[in-house]
């Protein structure tokens, strides 16, 4: 109906007498088109126009809704094949990441974990122990020898004592106690006013015992060297008895003196 009204104007001017209904005619002139556009702008409520308006309104709603859905771009928008591909991709990546996690955890365990830690602790403990034994700050026990010296009246000289200590050390003694004195690196032998030997400034007394921890047989052999410690003491008139034992105890302790002058040189290498 609107169409007919519209066509009433241009029809005689533009086209032939025959009016093909709803058939496309020759292209309208520019003026015609513009006039029709203006005519379209007029408000002419007819049933057909209203129905068309309802349809375009639905189109507008659908358009906006579709745009909204696309913006959300959820997984439900995808097709099955795309979902499968996506799933594959995600699974592959998850596997790769899991492998990486395993690898890293393994590394972490190796670096931090029980093995390295325990080994380091064990090494540190053993080093501490050997330093303590060397410094004479802990009592020790182990196989070794006990030398009982009864010299009656201090026949032992400074030289004999030094020889004895040196022979024991040569034979691999790991700890030595003479009388009540623990022999350590800083131990020294001196004499008092009457020429008697002093160990770390202390008289040995009589009788006294020398205890050494080490390989008992080697130590006993060292003591028995001709012209050695036992020999020279015996020739000076002392009674020397060497006893090998599976276990001797050295319980004299050395009190470590804090160094006043010596300072460790800072390590330049890696710690």
């Amino acid at each position: 109906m609107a169409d007919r009204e519209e066509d009433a104007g241009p029809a005689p001017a533009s086209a032939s007498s025959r009016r093909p209904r709803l058939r496309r005619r020759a292209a309208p002139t520019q003026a015609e088109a513009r006039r029709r556009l203006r005519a379209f702008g007029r408000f002419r409520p007819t049933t057909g126009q209203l129905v068309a308006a309802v349809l375009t309104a639905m189109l507008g709603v659908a358009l906006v809704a579709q745009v909204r859905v696309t913006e959300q771009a959820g997984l439900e928008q995808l097709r099955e094949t795309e979902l499968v591909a996506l799933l594959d991709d995600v699974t592959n990546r998850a596997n790769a990441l899991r492998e990486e996690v395993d690898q890293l955890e393994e590394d972490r365990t190796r670096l931090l974990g029980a093995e390295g830690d325990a080994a380091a602790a064990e090494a540190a403990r053993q080093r501490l122990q050997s330093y303590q034994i060397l410094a004479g700050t802990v009592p020790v026990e182990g196989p070794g020898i006990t030398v009982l010296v009864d010299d009656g009246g201090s026949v032992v000289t400074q030289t004999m004592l030094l020889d004895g200590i040196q022979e024991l050390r040569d034979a691999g003694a790991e700890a030595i106690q003479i009388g009540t004195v623990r022999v350590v690196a800083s131990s020294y032998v001196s004499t008092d006013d009457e020429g008697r030997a002093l160990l770390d400034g202390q008289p040995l007394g009589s009788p006294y015992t020398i205890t050494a921890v080490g390989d008992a047989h080697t130590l006993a052999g060292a003591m028995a060297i001709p012209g050695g410690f036992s020999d020279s003491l015996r020739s000076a008139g002392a009674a020397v008895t060497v006893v090998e034992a599976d276990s001797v105890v050295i319980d004299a302790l050395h009190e470590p003196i804090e160094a006043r002058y010596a300072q460790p040189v800072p390590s330049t290498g890696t710690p």
Partner: protein
Amino acid sequence: MIPVLGLVVGVVLGLVISPEVPTWLQPYLPIAVIAALDAVFGAARASLEGIFNDRVFVISFLSNVVVAALIVFLGNQLGVGAQLSTGVVVVLGLRIFSNVAAIRRHLLGA
């Protein structure tokens, strides 16, 4: 005029109420929208040529939407949904372009 107003009202309405698209409709809505757009541009061209008929518009609008949805449905059933959707979009896009070109020629003579 009234259909244009209807389009504007529809867009505003969609923005305001932001309707939820039902899941069963989601595969068909994009193609249906493009088909409807094709009908709208065809109607604009027809009105410039003086042959606009609202009955034709309503029928072409609805048939476009239904056929587009049907093609998508069929494509999904046959396992070529994506390709067929692309084809439909290409064809409708070509039609929209040719209609817009005609409108442009009518109004601007170029």
